[in-house]
């Protein structure tokens, strides 16, 4: 008999606070319970809305550490542009649907990783349906999560999938649904984000899009990546 999970338990699930042994039964229940999936999706959506609402406030208006005189807005704007352009370059560097060169481009924000005491946060970007790319993103995520756990650190990892990469997160297409479910069970801090534009394109073409449990549909992968980089996440293109 499955009791209705409490809001506190579901919140703990989306916040990565449940131990794997506690998360697994919930994830299992979510696979068969559409209403529960919806409750979890709504919770994650609320969390994302809050993040979006305050994302642009990462920069204080008054530059307290400036040497005086004019505010350093041009520096801030330039750095924001650099981050956005970096994401865009990674974005357009290859044709959609084509297997990418097997390279990983890491654009780490200078001030994020070195911050003492702050947990590192990593967004992994997958845009190819090539099998080796799908494997690579999962291997990378698992490696990062394992290493973080071994070091006693809480490191959120987010897989953002668009274009052909969305296949990895589609219930009826993914070749790795089982592995992803296990990974999410073992590491609740693993988050899955689908590109809303890619999903919409599929829907417009008459394809039903069903996403793996726990997957959040963002407006677009690019929005999500730029947002994460603004928040200081490390961007890794697979």
């Amino acid at each position, binding site marked *: 008999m499955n009791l209705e999970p409490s809001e506190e338990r579901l919140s703990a699930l989306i916040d990565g606070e449940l131990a794997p042994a506690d998360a697994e039964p919930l994830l299992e229940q979510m696979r068969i319970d559409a209403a529960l999936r919806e409750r979890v999706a709504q919770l994650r959506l609320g969390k994302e809305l809050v993040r979006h*609402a305050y994302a642009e406030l*990462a920069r204080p208006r008054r530059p307290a550490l400036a040497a005086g005189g004019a505010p350093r807005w041009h520096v801030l704007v330039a750095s924001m542009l650099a981050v956005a352009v970096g994401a865009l370059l990674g974005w357009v560097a290859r044709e959609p649907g084509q297997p990418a060169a097997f390279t990983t481009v890491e654009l780490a924000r200078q001030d994020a990783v070195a911050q003492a005491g*702050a947990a590192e946060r990593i967004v992994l970007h997958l845009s190819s349906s090539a099998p080796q790319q799908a494997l690579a993103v999962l291997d990378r995520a698992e490696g990062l999560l394992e290493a973080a756990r071994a070091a006693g650190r809480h490191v959120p990892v987010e897989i953002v999938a668009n274009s052909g990469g969305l296949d990895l997160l589609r219930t009826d297409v993914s070749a790795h649904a089982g592995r992803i479910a296990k990974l999410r069970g073992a590491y609740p801090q693993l988050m899955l984000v689908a590109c809303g534009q890619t999903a919409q394109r599929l829907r417009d073409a008459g394809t039903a899009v069903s996403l793996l449990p726990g997957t959040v549909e963002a407006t677009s992968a690019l929005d999500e990546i730029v947002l994460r980089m603004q928040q200081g996440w490390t961007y890794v293109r697979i």
Partner: protein
Amino acid sequence: MVMSLRSLFSRSVGMPAHLAQSRAGLFRLAFMWCHDRALADDLTQEALVKALRHAEQLRDPARMRAWLYGILANCWRDHLRARRPTEDIDTVEEHLLASADTPERTASQSQLALRVQTAVARLPVGQREVLSLVDLEECSYAEVALILDIPIGTVMSRLCRGRAALRSALADTQAPRSALRSVK
């Protein structure tokens, strides 16, 4: 304030860079608590100055984030004690509307952001604090309990109540899922 902060930074070894990097997070948190840019800036400055003055209290550098956020929470509570009850929701909404006119906010997502911020501003302070630390700064529940000096059970209950209230507030205006899609 700027001069004293600079001189403090130049005197300290090791801490300044880390503190400077924490500034954005402190400001974001403070803004989500008070929804007033100028006040958020003041609280951030105050917290940084206190952190520098009491750097020796941080025994474990791995806990710097929780330590800093705890200092900010104390500054915020001092402010609430001194000012209460002059702030009300109308004041907060005025601040929000005023800040919505700035170029960096009109550039994108201002409408949705404003609606969410207004809903957040209507939450009780305790729920707002917990929500900001968990959702914005991705603190663990244990960290939040440490920062706000409350039991973990209270962290969870405030979080759930806050999320439920937000969900209900946003459902009145637009379905959250379609609202999120409209973010550009």
